[in-house]
């Protein structure tokens, strides 16, 4: 939360800015907040501050860098950020702190309502959309834009450097810089994409490796494999193996090489001795390749324990052969017979089932042609009518004009097309039409018109004079927000016809976009970062403490939370589901982890939850509980901090330096986490923050560092009671849920702030808070539905308007 840091915003400069907007936008409807006593004068308001706040917040002590003495209730704009901070602390009940003089409850609430109303009213009269910097596409947005522009669904984002993050997200305009390294990579990647998409890739065979994510190698045992279906893309009765997407550059023959585990103690699992190969014809384009075994229904009789003593000569045993199926695009193309155990001179022993470690595809061989791929169809919207250069030029102009329009998100003219034609012509020389086109496509992909989202201001507009964002630019903001991509044809057309300013049309487009599969980007990119899901792959729970934590569990945890979030979006459910819900999404592995019976199979499905199961809502999901833990123990502080940051939008300041590690034992006695945390309560310097964080963490102690339920820790029964600074007592996850539900407006505000940060690609500032509150009120009036929150953000001043920057 940008403005929560000690910073001042001078709203005074913006007072008196000329408005270019219709008053209708500034719907006063949302301003009908809670009632307050209008007869109380501002002088009395100031008196209240002096009475209860100046013990600490005076000019001398300046606690938290703030003094209330210079504040003037008649001129909130002069200290906007400070007033917003005051509002936040008061509404949370954090100030005045326990032990200090407090006003009577009604008086405090009255003050809060007055303050909120006044701040909102001030902004309503002087809207401030904030600063909007020109913004580059981050690598995810780049990959999606390429997918939608060229119908080319190969994820090249791994070839681009990782983007820096700010405010918790990697799409923040100010943070996304351009460096020579990045430029170099863009040109490289654009070249690869343009060649593959047009069907001009290298004709030399190359190898693409698909490594399967596996559990850690266990010395002398090998790598675990399981008797269950490995992917929804594999046959129902299969076990093991893998399914993955491979982009075949040509209609040609390809060699599929399958590397099996050698199941021995020779750590090198990928070698030619355990490789099985077949050649298949593949059509150009994105193919799904699958390899799998058949599910074992009977006891495993192939395991041949061999003695490790004595001569290491392979016994002349009859090793059973297993059928291994290979599928392309869901249809089986071949079944190979492979030994059920690795045959080697040393060991013929297998602790784990025969399984696949890696699949490589080598090719193309015997190229037939570039094929009829979706990207070739999308790019070549015409073919030259004849072999003459004028016919070719005409068709090239048409192709490039169509692509440029969608790539640049606006109508294009010859000023845009002529330079592209120049590149086409140069590349065409000595080669052919398609080669020329591919060079121009590469140029489009590195041009600033594609890479940057630029916004314009009306000619002659004065700095400070806000205006509505033009339809085409709004369309780009929308598609980046909801799809992390460029607008599609329908959205572009609606914007070009200037229909997007009609609220009904805007609403309809937003609903359409949320229903579209491309809105998966919200789950992947917004939820993935808001909920720290991207950190899950880096968590390494200690193998001795959590021996059951395997690749399947890690993946299942992530899927549960992703499906949960996506479900709220898709079904337009209340965002309060995030705090507590009576359902979740499980598969067998995850259900076992939670101790829930009756869920069979690897596929995920929606499951109704009984309260006795202790699950439901984000705080009961293993993913969140795991990323807020250490490798070998839970962290009350990490979990508390996560809740403060992401649920209540009240992040604690950073800790002071040089804090010693926890004492796990004192006087030879192993202490519980609670006992170790005593210091947080005892020392006032620690207490100021930890009394806010720790209670939340304590209430979640029943979930261990991988999110499994437990009743005891360090041999003692867990004490999951907690007390907040304002005196509220609660107990365990159910108590936590009740406490959070009682602060649901605050949660909705926090959620809106996070989502707005993502939507605006900048930190949310103090002057944005009234807009946030407008969205919260709208949501409150509509059952807190997700689409209402999204729509509220889309229609908000910061999202739909723009302030021309100082020249």
């Amino acid at each position, binding site marked *: 939360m940008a403005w929560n840091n000690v910073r001042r915003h001078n709203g005074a400069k913006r007072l008196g800015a000329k408005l270019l907007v219709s008053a209708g936008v500034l719907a006063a409807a949302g301003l009908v907040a809670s009632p307050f006593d209008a007869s109380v004068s501002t002088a009395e308001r100031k008196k209240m501050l002096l009475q209860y706040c100046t013990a600490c917040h005076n000019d001398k002590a300046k606690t938290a860098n703030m003094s209330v003495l210079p504040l003037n209730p008649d001129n909130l704009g002069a200290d906007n950020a400070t007033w917003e901070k005051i509002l936040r602390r008061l509404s949370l009940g954090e100030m005045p702190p326990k032990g200090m003089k407090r006003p009577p409850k009604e008086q405090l609430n009255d003050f809060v309502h007055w303050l909120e109303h006044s701040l909102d009213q001030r902004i309503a009269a002087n809207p401030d959309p904030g600063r909007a*910097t*020109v913004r*580059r596409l981050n690598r995810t947005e780049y990959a999606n834009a390429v997918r939608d522009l060229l119908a080319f669904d190969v994820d090249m984002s791994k070839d681009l450097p990782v983007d820096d993050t700010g405010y918790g997200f990697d799409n923040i305009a100010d943070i996304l*810089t*351009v*460096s*020579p390294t*990045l*430029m*170099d990579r863009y*040109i*490289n990647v654009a*070249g*690869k994409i343009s060649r593959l998409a047009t069907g001009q890739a*290298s004709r*030399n*065979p*190359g*190898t693409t*490796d698909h490594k399967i994510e596996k559990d*850690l*190698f*266990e*010395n002398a045992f090998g*790598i675990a494999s399981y008797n269950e279906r490995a992917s929804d893309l594999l046959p129902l009765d299969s076990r093991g193996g893998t399914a993955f997407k491979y982009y075949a550059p040509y209609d040609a023959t390809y060699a599929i090489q399958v590397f099996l585990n050698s199941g*021995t103690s*020779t*750590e*090198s*699992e*990928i*070698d030619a001795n355990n490789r099985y190969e077949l050649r298949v014809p593949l059509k150009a384009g994105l193919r799904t390749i699958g390899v799998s075994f058949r599910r074992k229904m009977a006891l495993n009789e192939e395991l041949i324990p061999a003695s490790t003593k004595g001569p*290491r000569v392979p016994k002349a045993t009859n090793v059973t052969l297993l059928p291994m199926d290979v599928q392309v695009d869901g249809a089986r193309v071949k079944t190979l017979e492979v030994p059920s155990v690795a045959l*080697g*001179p*040393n060991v013929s022993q297998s602790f784990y089932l025969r399984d696949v470690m890696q699949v*490589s595809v*080598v090719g193309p061989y015997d190229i037939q042609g570039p094929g009829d791929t979706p990207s070739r169809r999308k790019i070549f919207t015409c073919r030259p009518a004849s072999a003459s250069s004028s016919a070719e030029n005409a068709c090239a102009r048409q192709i490039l004009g169509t692509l440029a329009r969608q790539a640049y998100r606006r109508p294009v003219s010859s000023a845009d097309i002529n*330079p*592209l034609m*120049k*590149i086409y012509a*140069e*590349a065409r020389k000595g080669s052919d039409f398609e080669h020329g086109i591919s*060079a121009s496509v*590469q*140029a489009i992909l*590195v*041009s*600033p*018109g594609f890479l*940057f989202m*630029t916004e314009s201001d009306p000619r002659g507009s004065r700095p400070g004079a806000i205006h509505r964002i033009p339809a085409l630019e709004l369309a780009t903001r929308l598609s980046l927000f909801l799809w992390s991509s460029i607008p599609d044809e329908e959205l572009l057309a609606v914007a070009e016809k200037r229909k997007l300013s009609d609220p009904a049309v805007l609403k309809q487009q937003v609903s359409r976009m949320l229903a579209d599969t491309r809105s998966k980007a919200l789950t992947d990119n917004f939820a993935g970062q808001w909920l720290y899901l991207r950190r899950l792959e880096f968590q*390494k729970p*200690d*193998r001795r403490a959590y021996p059951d934590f395997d690749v399947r569990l890690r993946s299942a945890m992530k899927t549960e939370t992703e499906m949960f979030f996506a479900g709220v979006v898709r079904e337009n459910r209340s965002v309060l589901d995030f705090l507590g819900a009576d359902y979740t999404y499980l598969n067998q592995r995850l259900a076992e982890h939670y101790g829930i019976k009756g869920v069979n199979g690897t596929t995920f499905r929606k499951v109704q939850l009984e309260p006795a199961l202790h699950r439901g809502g984000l705080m009961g999901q293993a993913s969140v509980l795991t990323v807020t833990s250490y*490798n070998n123990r839970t962290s009350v502080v990490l979990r508390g901090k996560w809740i403060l940051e992401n649920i209540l939008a009240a992040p604690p300041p950073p800790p002071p330096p040089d804090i010693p590690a926890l004492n796990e034992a004192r006087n030879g006695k192993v202490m519980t986490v609670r006992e170790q945390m005593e210091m947080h309560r005892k020392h006032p310097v620690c207490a100021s923050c930890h009394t806010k964080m720790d209670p939340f963490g304590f209430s979640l102690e029943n979930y261990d560092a991988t999110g499994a339920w437990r009743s005891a820790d360090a041999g003692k029964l867990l004490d999951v009671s907690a007390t907040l600074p304002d005196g509220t007592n609660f107990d365990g996850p159910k108590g936590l849920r009740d406490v959070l539900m009682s602060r649901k407006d605050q949660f909705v505000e926090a959620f809106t702030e996070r989502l707005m940060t993502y939507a605006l690609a900048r930190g949310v500032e103090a002057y944005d808070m009234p807009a946030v509150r407008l969205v919260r009120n709208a949501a409150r009036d509509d059952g807190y539905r997700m689409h209402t929150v999204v729509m509220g953000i889309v229609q908000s001043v910061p999202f739909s308007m723009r302030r021309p*920057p*100082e*020249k």
Partner: protein
Amino acid sequence: MIITRKTMDRRTMLRHVIYAPTGLMMASWTPAQAGENYTLSPILKPLEAHREKFMVVSNLDHAQAEALGDGAGDHGRCCGSYLTGAHVKKTEGADLASGVSMDQLVAQKYGEVTQIPSLELGLEQPSLAGSCDTGYSCAYTNTLSWSTPSTPLPVTTNPRAVFERLFGDGDSLDAASRLAQLRRQASILDFVADDAKRLSAGMSASDKRKLDEYMTSVRDIEKRIQKAEAAGGAAGSVTTFARPAGIPDDFQEHARMMIDLQVLSAQSDLTRVTTLMLAREVSGRSYPEIGVPDAHHPLSHHGNDPEKVAKLTKINTLHMKQIAYYIQRMSETKDGEASLLANPLLPAGASLADPNSHSHRNLPTIVAGGLVKGNRHLVAAKDTPMTNLMLSMMDMLDVRVDKLGDSTGRLPGFASVA
């Protein structure tokens, strides 16, 4: 990546390491005599033709690879300490701790002038994370290079990936295709620069600054292309080399391909620091092509069984053959008037002596390259740390470091350059 053909400074420093795992049969390694014109031992025989270009050094230890109270796990320790001289932390988890390795210290200096700071190459795929030697994470046996005490640099085993890292997406390096690629890039950059100018015309000052970053980066690349184009037609261009398809099945073919890439990287000055692991420490690879179908590591626990010892010696000799190939290729490749071998320092060897006892003393080591006086066997004083040799080598490369791991000073007798 575009090959920049700049005239190399006559004393351009190169630092390549070639590493053989799991120890060597010392009886067949250590030359009987010390000093000049010694007789080459059986394992060193493949290097006969190049005896002027390398020296053998004996009696170097890695005392920090001993258990020192940590129990089993000699392989994890010896590999992690080979270029660092550090006693690595016994852990299978995320808290790896070694030291900064010698090659990275050199890369810190020379990496600033080359496009790629260093290359870590291998012929055996790194094991998936887990435990590879009792209590030691696979990260320790997967690589020799550590850029910080907690950051191991993984090796690349796919020659195609190495090629693409060095030379980008092109299919081959012949002059015609290179020039074509350069021209296409140049014209795209022209277009892009014009477009950016148009765009920034209507922008505010702060937005212009953002776009400025973009334009500066574009100009940066344009300059590189111009330099490359100017040099592109000049004589002595890089050998034509086709992009490898993937990892060859045959060990020697794979080794040669990687060594070719090492040579190529030096020739084009894309990097001056490379390390090549002929196999992972604790390698389980077998070599049926030379009559050794057994896995390497189990074999290395030979228990003095003559049959096993013979097989191990065969493997060691095969590894030495690859080093001979390196020396040969570097000698034949021209760099200005001299050969590439005039400049580099190639320490090669293993981090274990006798593998059966996991000995960390008197490690088999040679140093090749134009900067050393070849054709001699230098026997250091007993208990000399290997890191002393490394300090002396770094001196030669103009990388002044006071201490590396457990070093106690320089190695006397080493620095006598022809």
